């Protein structure tokens, strides 16, 4: 990345907000681990907001533009976005080892926590109060997913296009109602959907 130039005003790239255009020196391996462990442990549900705050606002390792670009790339790649982000971010600054350290920082602490919870569940999972509490949490989490769907679907309906909502509904029916295997459904629907989007461009 060429953004580490010391000149206060880089003429080739427009600075969206001059406050965060000064980028800090690249993080060390230890800083990478601590940064992603912190992001991971402070994020329930969505980790995006936390990673933006740390990378752009607190540590200034990336500009807003660089962050958005890196994150857009991660959304295209298969697999969890934030996991991809940790690998791309870490390896961009510190090579393959940096990618690995960032990944371990992101996944290590929650893995330890969740295994502890899993062990507790194995012992106490049949307690009636705990069972009902988990039913409540699962119901709330399902509601959170519904809200996410509603937010994501808004732009689909805004431009009065039929293809997007149709693809979304077909995917939902095939996976959520008929319970067809995921690879099979995606092998058909993803090329169709990308083709439709290509035609609309």
């Amino acid at each position: 990345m060429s953004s580490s130039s010391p000149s206060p005003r880089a003429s080739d790239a427009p600075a969206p907000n001059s406050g965060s255009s000064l980028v800090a020196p690249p993080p060390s391996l230890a800083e990478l681990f601590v940064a992603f462990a912190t992001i991971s442990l402070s994020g329930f549900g969505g980790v995006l907001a936390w990673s933006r705050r740390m990378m752009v606002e607190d540590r200034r390792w990336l500009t807003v533009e660089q962050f958005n670009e890196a994150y857009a790339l991660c959304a295209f790649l298969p697999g969890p976005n934030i996991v991809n982000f940790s690998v791309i971010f870490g390896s961009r600054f510190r090579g393959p080892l940096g990618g690995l350290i960032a990944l371990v920082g992101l996944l290590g602490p929650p893995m330890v926590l969740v295994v502890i919870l899993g062990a507790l569940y194995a012992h106490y999972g049949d307690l009636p109060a705990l069972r009902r509490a988990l039913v409540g949490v699962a119901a709330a989490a399902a509601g959170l997913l519904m809200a996410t769907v509603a937010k994501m679907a808004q732009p689909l309906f805004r431009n009065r296009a039929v293809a997007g909502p149709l693809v979304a509904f077909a995917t939902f029916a095939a996976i959520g109602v008929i319970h067809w295997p995921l690879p099979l459904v995606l092998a058909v629907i993803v090329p169709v959907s990308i083709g439709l989007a290509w035609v609309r461009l």
Partner: protein
Amino acid sequence: MRDDSGTLVTLAGYFALMSLFAIGGANSAIPEMHRLVVEVRHWMTDRQFTDMFALAQLTPGPNVIIVTLIGFHVAGIVGALVATLAMCGPTCLFAFFVGRTFDRFRGAAWHAALAGGLVPVTIGLTAASATVVASAADYNWIAAGISLVTAVICYWVRLHPLWVFVAAALLGAAGLV
């Protein structure tokens, strides 16, 4: 709980393949996890799957952590490691190599087509995930009410989801669900 090597290989194969199809993140793959783990393999009951989903939501960190929990339930600590590695390994390698060449792709036309094509699929998959959780065994009218209220709150109010989860857990523990 089983820990024979056959189970570990199956676990690794399932999640490695699934990771490549998890468009938009782990929440998109919840129905596929449910299908394989509950319907095909009978590694756990419907209720246990929903409980694990709830536990994973209560744990800070990426949503993919549910895979660790499933692996742990099926084959202990080794299962947890195998499942997580399988779910993250292939896509991380992919991300590593693509990340190095990303600057060449910037602004390409297929970039927009790819985005426009994948977003509706992700929406459909996330909706399917909500349905799978909501059609679980213990899901009654009060649970449906909790889902709806949560959806409304999270849609209109910028409230940390953890508070809603805590409130729902308390409602459940009090015997209302």
